[in-house]
């Protein structure tokens, strides 16, 4: 593997070498390397670009890594990844996209991820987005995530974008059947002139479905962020939406959490806050001997951890 490849892979998937278990590495719009295992099968789609990841029922303690890296300028990559998680399976899925754009043309990756999570199955999905390279070319990521949760399934999603992505529009939709649980955490840092927008719709369709959506972000410089999560309760269910942002410099943040109850037994709460770093926090850390910039960094890192 080349140096740029391994740097990107480390940033987005904490990978230092070829991962254990199933994996599929995509590079510059093409499959690069892949391994299926006895319980996790990865097959190339025939009708459109992308892969199907099929996890056998009752698979336990296995992981799938599906990182995407782009190292060329002017790449426009669109990919469909469909996950079929069998009944009672428990897996860790690590996705993520790293773009190294040192040219002057835009490089873009749009990943359309669909999760079919079987009865009582449990997944943890981690996705990191990262951009680097000193060219003028934009680094653009527009992920679409669709989650279909069957009865009693648990889906924990962690989506992180900390650095270097110029523009991102994230679109997430989830449907939860009875007893299903969805925990979605989104962490975002934008700087420079970056733009990030995240729209989420979570439909709690079944009895006792529950969902927790947590969005934490830091907007620096001239960057812009828009959050628009919507939790829709169609049955006796519980949902909690929190958007919490730190705003700095000349940034703009807009949080538009929405909640909709179509059942009198739906319990849905949202909280949203946007604010500067509290001055007392800065001073407290300065009394430990840090300067203002160091104190700011500690506060931001803790907040996004």
């Amino acid at each position, binding site marked *: 593997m080349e140096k740029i490849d391994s740097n990107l892979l480390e940033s987005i998937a904490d990978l230092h070498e070829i991962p254990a278990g199933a994996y599929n590495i995509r590079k510059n719009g093409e499959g690069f390397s892949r391994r299926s295992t006895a319980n996790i099968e990865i097959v190339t789609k025939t009708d459109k670009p992308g892969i199907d990841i099929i996890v056998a029922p009752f698979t336990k303690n296995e992981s799938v890594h599906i990182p995407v890296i782009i190292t060329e300028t002017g790449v426009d990559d669109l990919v469909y990844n469909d996950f079929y998680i069998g009944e009672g399976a428990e897996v860790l899925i690590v996705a993520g996209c790293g773009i190294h754009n040192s040219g002057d043309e835009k490089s873009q990756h749009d990943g359309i991820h669909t999760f079919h999570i079987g009865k009582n199955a449990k997944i943890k999905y981690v996705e990191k987005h990262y951009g680097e390279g000193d060219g003028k070319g934009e680094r653009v990521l527009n992920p679409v995530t669709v989650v279909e949760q069957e009865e009693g399934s648990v889906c924990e999603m962690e989506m992180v974008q900390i650095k270097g992505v110029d523009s991102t529009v994230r679109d997430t939709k989830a449907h939860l059947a009875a007893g299903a649980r969805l925990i979605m955490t989104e962490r975002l840092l934008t700087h420079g002139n970056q733009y990030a927008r995240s729209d989420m719709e979570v439909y709690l369709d079944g009895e006792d479905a529950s969902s927790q959506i947590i969005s*934490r972000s830091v907007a620096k410089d001239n960057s812009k962020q828009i959050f628009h999560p919507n939790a829709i309760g169609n049955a006796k269910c519980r949902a909690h939406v929190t958007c919490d942002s730190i705003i700095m410099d000349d940034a703009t943040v807009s949080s538009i959490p929405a909640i909709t109850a179509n059942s009198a037994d739906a319990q849905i709460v949202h909280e949203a806050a946007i604010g500067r770093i509290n001055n*007392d926090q800065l001073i*407290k850390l*300065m009394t430990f001997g840090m300067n203002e910039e160091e104190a700011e960094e500690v506060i931001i890192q803790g907040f996004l*951890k």
Partner: protein
Amino acid sequence: MLKLENVSFKVDVDGEVLEIVDNVSIEVPDGAFTVITGPNGGGKSTLARLIMGIEKPTSGRILYNDIDITNMSVTERAKLGIGYAFQQPPRFKGLTVRRLLSLAAGSELPVDECCGYLTSVGLCSKDYLNREMDNSLSGGEAKRIEIATLMARKLGLAIFDEPEAGIDLWSFSMLVESFKAMSKGSHQSVIVISHQERIMQLADEMVVIAGGKIRETGPKDKIFPKLMGEFNENCGFRGKEE
């Protein structure tokens, strides 16, 4: 040694000048345990903030170990070994107690050392090390962690602002023990702002501040009995029952 020379702090509120701290001169000798007391709004916290550098005096000078620190930043004063436990500790989302103690100490602290500091403020360490210093902590818990961060630092001058506030009786005894230990042996000077008799009794020196001015200052043995006498006189209703 800390020396305040004619320190004043004036603020302009709607065109009216308020003397929050008014021409205060005090000396805090090395290794001494000094208690500052006085009525609410008297200017105690403001004085502490002036010493730490969070506020700058409008006139006067502050000297620490013969260095003029009047114009030094909070960071520079911290590096000289001055520390201040806030009356109202700020909360931090995402920072664990262990991380906060490590940040205070200036390096990653081993678990047992963190536990030691937490125990000395009456907290069962196991339950708290990985808790976040956020709004989920109670007032008394946050207050005690704040005190522990000062214990984790190597300081020449430690200022505690009403460390007893909001703390239960059992933890209070623990705290008094810790302050006793601190005032013995080490060369560090400790200033405690307090309204508590039991803390005043530990003092070597006392300062009474009201209306931004020093009312009394001197050794505890002289000031403390006077203060208690004054208190009894002023409370004419004491012992008088309907």
